[in-house]
């Protein structure tokens, strides 16, 4: 007979304590479902407040669980890995979600689609991201990825619940559908890739794959083939989530159509989840296996090419965009390219740590900056969907000087100007790339960031140096949104000016 452990045994054996940030968030959200059910219409602000509180609880739990000196440990029978990497990214995810939630309430009220389920889905999606970051098994990667994505599919289509046939509802619906179809399509590739890796190595546990992989590669049999093709398909499946070329096509459409806070959220958490899984799988499990020549992983070429394509395409197409959300969508593709550069750098033996740290700092900087930019875009959007074009922000410096200043700083940070967080991230990524011998990639990165100045600066120029073309928009600035922008601004500047902060935070991170 199968002996099941008692609850107490389960808690101790499974090391449940180290999964607390995620599990607490899930549990809190389940409570929130009940609260939302019984709170009634007149207390509908309970759910967003509860969501913020839940994020705070999870944040505190995270601080306790991932104390600075905490060692790497696994939990839940090897499914979950708790290390500095997890802790750091958990914080980034939680802050991102908090900002998105802060942005959401006003937007939903304005659009007339305020429903408590929105926050529940948001929180569960973030919980999915948190588990994905900590995944130590391909199965968990897959399931957490779906938990991350499926709420986002729904949220992308959230405007359509109003069902008034308006343009925005249609766009939102289309966005959700496109995201869903392509997401499911790419998930299938991911599953097949995982199946092949399992077939080659006989395990789905990431560290165990690492143990088995060298022998598999040496065998040069069909198992090798499974492993390589499986790796390729894993790259495809996760590359879709992080929106790198050529798996990026969904991004602009989905970003444009989805409600802006959702766009902001998915542009960050989905990328974090995807990159975390890519780093864990490629660097941890599949790095050694494919070290073909001179300590360079065989996937490095592939990742480098993807990174270069992403950088070029993302930055160049962004130039010709008029819609701010679309521009930011392409810009987010481009930023995925920069993180991809770090990933490629992690493929050189010995530089995995610096590359990972660079990627993490980049993600941190990108999180603050991008969410801030989206928050600004959201405030100037109109209910009917107007106001999101680059020409609509002309003269913003006059009507909303502080908002314009914030946007300027976000744009500078996205460009990578010193003293902003964006520069710190770019610097660390390029430094890692150069150290890993990817000078060409670093040069492409620098060149494309020069190109990126072109369209980011156009926003600034439009705000400051041009007269307003039409009537000035009644910008939406309530306390919530203002707080979101303030936090994002503070993060962008603090991490930009006090450089050691970011690099110290990630200095313990090591996943190789």
């Amino acid at each position, binding site marked *: 007979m199968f002996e099941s452990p008692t609850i107490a045994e389960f808690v101790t054996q499974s090391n449940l304590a180290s999964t607390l940030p995620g599990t607490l968030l899930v549990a809190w959200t389940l409570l929130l479902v009940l609260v939302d059910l019984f709170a009634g219409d007149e207390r509908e602000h309970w759910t967003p407040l509860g969501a913020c509180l839940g994020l705070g609880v999870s944040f505190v739990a995270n601080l306790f669980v991932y104390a600075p000196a905490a060692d790497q440990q696994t939990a839940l029978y090897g499914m979950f890995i708790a290390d500095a990497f997890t802790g750091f990214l958990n914080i980034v995810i939680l802050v991102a979600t908090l900002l998105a939630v802060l942005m959401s309430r006003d937007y939903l009220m304005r659009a007339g689609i305020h429903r408590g389920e929105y926050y529940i889905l948001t929180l569960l999606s973030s919980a999915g991201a948190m588990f994905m970051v900590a995944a130590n098994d391909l199965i968990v990667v897959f399931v957490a990825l779906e938990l991350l994505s499926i709420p986002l599919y729904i949220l992308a289509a959230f405007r359509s619940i109003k069902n008034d046939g308006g343009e925005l509802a249609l766009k939102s619906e289309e966005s959700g559908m*496109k995201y869903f179809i392509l997401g*499911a399509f790419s998930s*299938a590739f991911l599953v097949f890739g995982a*199946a092949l890796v*399992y077939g080659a190595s006989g395990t*789905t546990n990431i560290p165990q794959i690492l143990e088995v992989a060298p022998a598999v590669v040496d065998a040069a049999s069909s198992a090798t083939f499974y492993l390589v093709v499986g790796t390729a398909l894993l790259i495809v499946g996760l590359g879709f989530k992080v929106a790198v070329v050529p798996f990026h096509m969904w991004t602009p459409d989905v970003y444009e159509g989805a409600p802006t806070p959702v766009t902001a959220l998915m542009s960050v958490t989905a990328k974090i989840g995807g990159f975390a899984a890519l780093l864990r799988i490629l660097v941890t499990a599949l790095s050694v296996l494919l070290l073909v020549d001179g300590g360079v992983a065989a996937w490095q070429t592939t990742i480098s090419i993807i990174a270069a394509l992403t950088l070029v395409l993302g930055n160049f197409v962004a130039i010709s965009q008029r819609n701010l959300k679309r521009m930011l969508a392409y810009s987010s593709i481009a930023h995925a390219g920069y993180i991809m550069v770090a990933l490629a750098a992690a493929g050189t033996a010995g530089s995995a740590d610096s590359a990972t740290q660079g990627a993490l700092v980049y993600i941190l900087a990108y999180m603050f900056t991008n969410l801030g930019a989206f928050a600004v875009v959201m405030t100037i959007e109109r209910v009917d969907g107007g106001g999101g074009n680059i020409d609509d922000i002309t003269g913003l410096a006059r009507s909303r000087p502080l908002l314009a200043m914030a946007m300027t700083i976000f744009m500078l940070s996205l460009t990578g100007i010193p003293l902003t967080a964006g520069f710190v991230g770019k610097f660390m990524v390029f430094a890692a790339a150069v150290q890993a011998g990817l000078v060409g990639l670093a040069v492409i990165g620098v060149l494309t960031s020069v190109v990126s100045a072109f369209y980011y600066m156009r926003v600034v120029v439009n705000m400051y140096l041009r007269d307003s073309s039409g009537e000035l928009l009644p910008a939406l600035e309530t306390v919530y949104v203002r707080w979101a922008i303030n936090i994002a601004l503070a993060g962008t500047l603090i991490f930009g000016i006090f450089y050691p902060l970011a690099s110290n935070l990630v200095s313990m991170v090591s996943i190789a």
Partner: protein
Amino acid sequence: MNAIGTEPYIILSMVLFLMGALGVLIRRNAILLFMSVELMLNSANLALVAFAREWGQVDGHVFVFFVMTVAAAEVAIGLALIVNIFRERQSINIDDLQQMRG
């Protein structure tokens, strides 16, 4: 008993997988698109089960179990989206969804 090796199953699953992928490319009916995705997932499951037998572990079976559950969740959401879209546009032709582009 196991006269047939793993490889034929894998090849079969790859064939089915690629047919599913092809279905996503050529069908315009959104529901059929989903069915094609289901076919892809299903063929991945077949590969997993074949590998599980090869390794003599049930981990592969467990993976299949999760894939099935996730597929069920995805189908629920996908069909809800389709119904929603149909209500708006009286069409589930996927090519009609191209309001956003460029």
